[in-house]
């Protein structure tokens, strides 16, 4: 992680042209790729008898349908696992966390081949009915197109990050027919700032995606609903309660998802056996509960129809979907958690409605509002993007009443999940990789800078047996006041600072313990905290593993690094064009 070295920036009008051109290109490409992915998945679902519409046409051959139900996800899992193992350098699928990491730290995305492999396996996973979502892969696919900008040197600072965000926005805009939500998603989840330089191209890309999806290809809206309005005032209280309940379920889901992966890796040695096993679990469950197969668009629709599910049926379906989704993603199927979240959340909403109106007998405005509130509350807890979720409801339903009700559910869900789990599944996954956004974007950036990268080449090291007068001489020559005393193995024993009057005969006698020691894991944010109250000119850095002295960093260098990084972030976050 280094400061960006964009010395020669293009003039502003040219930058404007470049950004708009890139936004249109990336947005258009990402949108068409997203449509292609959806169509490919739909085709596979039909051919492989995953889609209900295909299954019912073979209704006269129940044996065939049952066999396909079990075999398709299992073999799909096996193939996905094998492809990951042999064709991808990372050996795993990519998703939004990888995009966030690349954009935040201005790094290139993982290698193109692995990225395309990840997209291919996503199509296979979704096509064979694994319980995973399509939006994560779509976001990553969109990001790939933006990622090409990393190779361009066009004189626009942070161009690659902006271009990747453009791809993400266009993918979401296409997927949901929701250009406003696309813009917000890119900012809320990926960019995490609202600089005009990024906002404008991201919006252009999002609208380009919308135009392609709506005007050119005339895709139907993902989720159309007619809703007369919220009939009773107290129902806003209900949806707030629903938000709280949904948050708890979302936390269970995310914890399960994060635990199941490592646990499976311990139990089953072969990665492809893990995915095949998860696929088998999906297939066997689908024999009795076909709703768990795939993305579950029909199930999502049923959730808005009053009384489509019985109470027991709902509970079983929610539990099965939570477990199978966690299992599929944990086992290594390629796909996101967003669309399953929509489904699980809406089912919880319906469960809530069934309990409130069916059992408690309270008059309500129908299942739809609870289904949508629950859907978005769950999804927002998982992706950590409340504004995006609220806007998605608005753009999907174009209904003000539903949006307000869903908004209440979303914020209460976020309240709980943020406090008890973390801002989002993505952020917690990133935190496990050492990138912690929980205290903000700047903190994460400071935390990404390691003090070991700022070592002073000329720090003075001595041994216990050196003579203090020689040490003093060397320190004077380098302009330092303290020398670092090492043992014969190179481990740090302490510091020695020669005094003017009575030097001891050997360094050993004047040895003082170091007041502050950093190791090679210490980051800038941490170091600055610990430097509070430190007096001295340099801090020794030792290897955390062996204890060997690696060098020393000067306080002045750390402060400069801190100021530079802070200035760079401010510049990025407030750039006009």
């Amino acid at each position, binding site marked *: 992680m280094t400061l960006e070295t964009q010395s020669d920036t293009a003039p502003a009008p040219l930058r404007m042209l470049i950004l708009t051109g890139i936004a249109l290109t990336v947005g258009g490409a990402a949108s068409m790729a997203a449509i292609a992915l959806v169509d490919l998945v739909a085709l596979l679902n039909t051919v492989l008898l995953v889609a209900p*519409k295909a299954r*019912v*046409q073979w*209704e006269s051959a129940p044996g065939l349908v049952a066999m396909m139900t079990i075999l398709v996800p299992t073999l799909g899992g096996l193939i996905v696992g094998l492809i990951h193992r042999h064709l991808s350098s990372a050996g795993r699928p990519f998703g939004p966390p990888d995009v966030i990491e690349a954009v935040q730290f201005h790094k290139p995305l993982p290698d193109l081949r692995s990225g395309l492999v990840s997209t291919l396996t996503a199509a296979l996973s979704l096509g064979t009915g694994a319980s995973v979502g399509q939006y994560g892969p779509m976001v990553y696919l969109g990001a790939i197109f933006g990622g090409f900008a990393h190779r361009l040197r066009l004189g626009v600072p942070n161009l690659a990050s902006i271009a990747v965000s453009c791809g993400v926005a266009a993918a979401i805009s296409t997927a949901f027919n929701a250009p406003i939500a696309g813009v917000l998603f890119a900012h809320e989840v990926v960019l995490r700032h609202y600089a005009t330089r990024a906002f404008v191209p991201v919006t252009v890309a999002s609208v380009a995606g919308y135009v392609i999806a709506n005007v050119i290809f005339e895709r139907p809206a993902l989720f159309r609903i007619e809703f007369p309005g919220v009939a009773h005032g107290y129902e806003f209280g209900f949806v707030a309660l629903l938000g709280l309940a949904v948050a708890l379920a979302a936390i269970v889901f995310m914890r399960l998802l994060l635990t199941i992966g490592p646990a499976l890796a311990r139990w089953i040695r072969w990665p492809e056996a893990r995915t095949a096993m998860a696929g088998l679990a999906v297939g066997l469950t689908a024999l009795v509960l076909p709703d768990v197969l795939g993305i579950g668009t029909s199930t999502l629709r049923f959730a808005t129809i009053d009384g489509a599910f019985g109470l027991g049926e709902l509970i079983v379906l929610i539990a099965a979907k939570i477990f199978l989704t966690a299992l599929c993603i944990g086992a290594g199927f390629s796909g996101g958690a967003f669309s399953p979240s929509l489904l699980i959340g809406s089912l919880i909403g319906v469960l809530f409605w069934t309990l409130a109106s069916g059992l408690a007998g309270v008059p309500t405005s129908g299942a739809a509002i609870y289904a949508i509130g629950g859907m978005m509350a769950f999804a927002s807890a998982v992706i950590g993007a409340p504004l995006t979720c609220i806007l998605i409801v608005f753009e999907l339903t174009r209904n003000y009443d539903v949006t307000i009700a869903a908004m209440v559910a979303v914020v209460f869900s976020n309240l709980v999940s943020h406090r008890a789990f973390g801002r989002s599944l993505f952020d917690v996954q990133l935190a496990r990789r050492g990138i912690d956004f929980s205290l903000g974007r700047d903190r994460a950036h400071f935390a990404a800078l390691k003090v070991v990268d700022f070592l002073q080449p000329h720090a003075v090291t001595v041994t216990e047996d050196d003579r203090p007068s020689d040490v003093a001489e060397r320190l004077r020559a380098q302009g330092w006041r303290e020398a670092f005393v090492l043992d014969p193995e190179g481990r740090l024993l302490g510091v020695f600072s020669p005094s003017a009057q009575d030097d001891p005969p050997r360094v050993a006698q004047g040895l003082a313990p170091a007041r502050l020691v950093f190791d090679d894991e210490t980051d800038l944010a941490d170091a600055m905290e610990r430097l509070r109250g430190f007096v001295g000119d340099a801090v020794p850095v030792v290897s955390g593993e062996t204890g060997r002295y690696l060098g020393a960093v000067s306080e002045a260098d750390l402060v400069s690094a801190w100021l530079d990084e802070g200035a760079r972030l401010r510049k990025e976050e407030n750039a006009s064009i």
Partner: protein
Amino acid sequence: MRRSDLLLLMLAVIATPARADDLTIVSWGGAYETAQRQAVIAPFAAETGLDVDVVVYDGSWTALAERGVPEGWDVIDMLADQARVACAHGLLLKIDPNSLFAPASLADFTPFAPDRCAVPQNAYARVMAFDDRAFSGVKPTRIEDFFDTARFPGPRAVQRSPDGILEWALLAEGVPPEQIYGLLSTDRGLRLAFRKLDTIRDDIIWWQDAAAPAAMLADGRAVMAAGFNGRFFDVAQRGRAPIDIVWDGRIIGTEVWAIAADTDAPDAARAFVMHAANPDTMARLATQIPYGPTRRSAFDRIGINQDLSVPMRAHLPNAPQHPGRALVRESGWHANTEDLRQRRFRDWLAAED
């Protein structure tokens, strides 16, 4: 096939010695058959000098299996999905669209081109219609109203078949048209559709003859009816009955011509199908009865019905100005789910409580 080839084929047909009943054409009877006779069959008979006989059936492929051979059926007017099932059962003569039609003509067909058993001939719609006298104030305007016996009380005429009514049941539940067939493919979807049907069970009068629903509205036996747009049009216009069509929830289907596998006059049958598939013939039919042509080039030729002085284009099921939701029948899906839907429908009928 070029026009000259068609002439040659017709000459060949004429050259063969004519017998009584050269060609038996099977259709649905009523106003539809009358229109077909005027627009399609009579001109063909006049041109070829063949003796054409018309037989009526109920539109099911099973009727073809039972009556086809004994009654010497040659050309049959079928729903696209029924033709698919009949084709799969080997009841229809295979045709080769590429030898019958030029590539430009094949591309002219809509919504689909002729396949190995059937040539699309017109687009019809299953629509809801009501008796204007029954509702003096607010009139029904949407499919939901068909199931709303509180606001719109009275008997409803419905075909004794799962066709159409299941789609309407889910539309009335708020399911958007593009998801109807996906949802009807699940057990839950069928259950919900029949649950909706339960709400009007006691108000249904069943019909089996396509002419019945319009007649039931006209003579007051029903206040609302599910039927075919052409029949309602005919009774409203020619019979001066106070019937109005609700275009919301219209289910647009395609009617095809097919040739029986056991036909004794394959050449004459082919010549007839070619004649019927001509844009001029299609436009002529559409001016008699509002069933839309299945060739794009025929749309522009549709004018005013001379008997009624009614401009016909506005009454076609696929006229762009119709409001509300429209569903397009998916013949493959209908053909392959026929058994299941019939079984579930019979079970529902039997479960009278």
